């Protein structure tokens, strides 16, 4: 019998943490993935959404192009890593629906990027394979860095008024 879901375990951990860490409430709503296929499919879809937003912003703002180009190059590398993971786990990739291009706000990009990072963090425990965890954790490190870069960008925009 399963005595504790990962979500309840996370809540337990958060309940024991000081306020500063507890304050990030979205973590308490962690998604329980059913297995590696669901994790990888969700990541494919969320990555496509982030990529469409990056392309839309870079299309409008030339100063954002180096950043978008760097992030999109990381995405391409991450897709190759996921292909290897799928091969290892004998999974097939479903076609990814094209995301809407009309998503040009920085706030929207931040929300989409956070969802992509959280899908990795919440998905690792559903992979059931140490090599797959290692591979996706390394991708997550890049994506968490991207999220912080977007946060710093938002802070700079706010400081400019």
């Amino acid at each position, binding site marked *: 019998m399963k005595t504790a879901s990962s979500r309840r375990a996370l809540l337990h951990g958060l309940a024991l943490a*000081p306020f500063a*860490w507890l304050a990030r409430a979205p973590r308490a709503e962690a998604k329980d993935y059913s297995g590696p296929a669901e994790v990888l499919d969700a990541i494919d879809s969320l990555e496509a959404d982030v990529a469409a937003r990056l392309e839309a912003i870079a299309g409008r703002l030339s100063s954002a192009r180096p950043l978008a180009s760097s992030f999109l190059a990381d995405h391409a590398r991450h897709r190759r890593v996921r292909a290897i993971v799928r091969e290892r786990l004998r999974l097939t990739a479903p076609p990814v629906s094209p995301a809407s291009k009309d998503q040009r706000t920085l706030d929207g990009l931040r929300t989409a990027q956070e969802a992509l990072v959280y899908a990795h963090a919440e998905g690792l425990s559903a992979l059931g394979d140490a090599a797959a*965890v290692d591979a996706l954790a390394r991708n997550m490190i890049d994506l968490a860095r991207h999220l*912080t870069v977007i946060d710093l960008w938002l802070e700079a925009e706010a400081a400019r008024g």
Partner: protein
Amino acid sequence: MAEVSLPRSRREIVLDLARAAGVAPAIIGLLEGTASALPRGESADLAILSAAVALENQAIAIYDHGTRRSLIPAGLRHYAVEFRGDHLGHRDTQVAILEERGGKAPEALPESLVGSVAAGDDWIRQALTIEIAAQDAYGALISQIRTKDYLLSAAFILVDEIRHMTVWRRVLGLKIY
């Protein structure tokens, strides 16, 4: 002739910090690349939890030292407060998991062990060093975690460590993308 200090690799820095924190030999082996996996079972998680708590204690000591001695530039103190809070959360969460499983957490580090650090960039570099060490250690160990609840917590902790590292790199004018 003046003594020349050679730049140390990230791995050497992580290993030095891990050894100073009293991290178990099995974990040191994994971090230095002489071992590829930890033994299966609950003992692997206990060893990782203990190492992680030791590294979190080091990070907390550096932030406490910087705050008490006013080493952190005024415009950056909000980051230091946020990151110290994160490290306290990481430590307390992992201590709770460790104790729930019958383990004993390493003691907190006395601030006196931080050593001599000057205000401003010197302190920021020190903070960046421990954040890099934390990122490298969690990144190297996460695939060895055996239980789902701890793996989920460790993943979110790793995301926080990346945020800390990226902010300090940006402050020091280092490449972040």
